[in-house]
């Protein structure tokens, strides 16, 4: 069962800056929402395909966590990307083609890694997107992101989970980034769960405190996309930096099952915000278009 109350400060409103959405253009707001829709309806189509046994390999769904990549990808589109295992939203938001992801999940040669790698190991090296695939060793991407920044001097964004944050090599790598002032944007998608064990059973400390102690600016916020994008904008020019973002995983760690409703539904909250801004109609048609495109993508 997903615990009703997560660790410490977890909430749907933590750090949300009132009216911050107003500092974003309508187009920016809608683009973040569109990316959320792409991830969401891609994964919803995948759920059906798993139930129909058309996809038989393990899948790691981004459902519930879409806003993180959707927001950050609009702010740092040119950064090299190092993903974690739960990476569908990352891939799609940064501009990966949905059909190649689908084909990877089906094990086809037209997939992102020729069907050899699968859901938790998605890469993209097309156009301006440079996204390296994870291999399954949780947190491994963090030292690699740091090494890539060291080796290239180029900015990097690195996503990982609250479980990965506990790996010794993860904060050791962040310490190295602090020492060498490397341009790495560390983003923790904190769903409070490592498989199904909540943080309070695993540790007494906060990763945000640890990262701050390493000398890296670090904040805890909830997954409101405008708030995320705001912090990303603030931090993007003074890397390294760290965002710990509270999210709610909607489904199982691996697979399409669910243990009941999540603590909050960010997708619904974002739609509500857009409606308040008078964007109900435009966001509604964006959602419809995306849903239809994804239904077509997954059509048997």
């Amino acid at each position, binding site marked *: 069962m997903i615990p009703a109350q997560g660790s410490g400060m977890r909430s749907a409103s933590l750090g949300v800056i009132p009216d911050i959405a107003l500092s974003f253009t309508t187009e920016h707001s809608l683009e973040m929402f569109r990316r959320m829709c792409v991830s969401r309806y891609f994964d919803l189509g995948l759920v059906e395909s798993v139930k129909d046994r058309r996809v038989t390999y393990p899948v790691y769904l981004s459902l519930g966590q879409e806003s993180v990549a959707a927001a950050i990808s609009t702010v740092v589109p040119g950064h090299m990307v190092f993903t974690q295992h739960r990476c569908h939203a990352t891939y799609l938001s940064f501009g990966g083609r949905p059909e190649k992801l689908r084909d990877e999940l089906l094990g086809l040669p037209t997939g992102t890694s020729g069907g050899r790698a699968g859901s938790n190991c998605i890469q993209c090296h097309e156009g301006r997107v440079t996204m*390296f695939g994870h291999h399954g060793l949780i947190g491994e991407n963090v030292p690699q992101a740091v090494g890539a920044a060291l080796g290239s001097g180029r900015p990097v964004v690195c996503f990982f989970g609250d479980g990965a944050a506990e790996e010794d090599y993860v904060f050791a790598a962040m310490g190295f980034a602090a020492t060498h002032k490397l341009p790495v944007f560390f983003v923790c998608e904190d769903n409070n769960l490592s498989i199904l064990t909540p943080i309070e059973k695993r540790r007494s400390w906060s990763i945000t405190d640890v990262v701050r102690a390493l000398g890296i600016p670090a904040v805890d916020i909830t997954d409101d996309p405008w708030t995320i994008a705001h912090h990303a904008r603030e931090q993007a020019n003074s890397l390294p930096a760290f965002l710990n973002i509270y999210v709610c995983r909607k489904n199982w760690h691996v697979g399409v099952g669910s243990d009941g409703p999540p603590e909050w539904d960010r997708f619904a909250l974002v739609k509500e915000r857009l409606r308040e801004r008078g964007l109900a109609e435009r966001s509604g048609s964006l959602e419809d278009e995306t849903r239809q495109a994804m239904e077509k993508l997954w059509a048997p």
Partner: protein
Amino acid sequence: MGSVTVADTIRETTRDHLERNDGLLLGQSVTAVGWVNGTVPDCRNIIELPMTDVAGAGIAVGAALVGRRPIFVIRFQDFLVLNGSPLIYFAAKTKALHGKSAPVFVRAIASDGLGPVHSGVLHGIFMHFPGFRVCSPMTPWEYRRIWEDFMSHDDPMIVSEHRASFPNTEELEDRVAGDAVITIYPVSATRFEAVKAADVLAAEGIRCNVVHVLWLKPLVIDERMAGPLCRSGSGLVVDAGHETAGASQAIAYALTRATGIPVAAMGLADETKCLCPPLQNRIPDAGRIAGAVREMLRCASPEGLAHG
């Protein structure tokens, strides 16, 4: 006889890479106290890693992903158990999975007689995993050769160095004789000992071939490797690592499969290496290698003893 040592060769090859190729060298405490036995040059592009063995290897892999062909220095091979995960699970797999390579040059330095976790030789573990090239150069020419190999491929490479080779200026040529009764395949620092053992045995009238093993993976059983074995009729692989499930057994098996001739394996006993004699469990020396050869020949044929 040249005057350039293996240590000089490593240092100057590295300098060239760092200065001219904009390569990168990463390691812990590499720029002090002898600069890793004189093998690290004083030049740009050297990164002192903090004591983060797992993250350090991951950082090297990240640098490899963006094309820097990093040299990752491991002062004692034993630490590879910590350094291993990013190398094994990422660097060695990324080409097969994603078609993207992560060529890291891993300088895994071995020693002997320095106690339980500073005397290990772990190259056998890395032969086990797909995706690596694994070698153990002991001479200046071999070092230059394996460096060229690294630069002309895109695989991560485990270079099993041994401190005993650092002062060496000599090349080690194969010794092959028509009347040899056994072929010895030594690996790493046992190569210096195998040559001495062959001299001792020759003086007793036992002629041995010595076929040096530089490449552990890919292990190519070509005419140079198999021919002397077929003609001599028996073989012995000698390694500086543990014998059980180690490089010596793996190579012996491959030779046997390729030729049909039984080949024995000799490495370290299945015991912890302690600091002081007699429990150091050191690498096979000339005396032990010669003893093993005598014993093999005695068991193989009763008349074999007559040679002794």
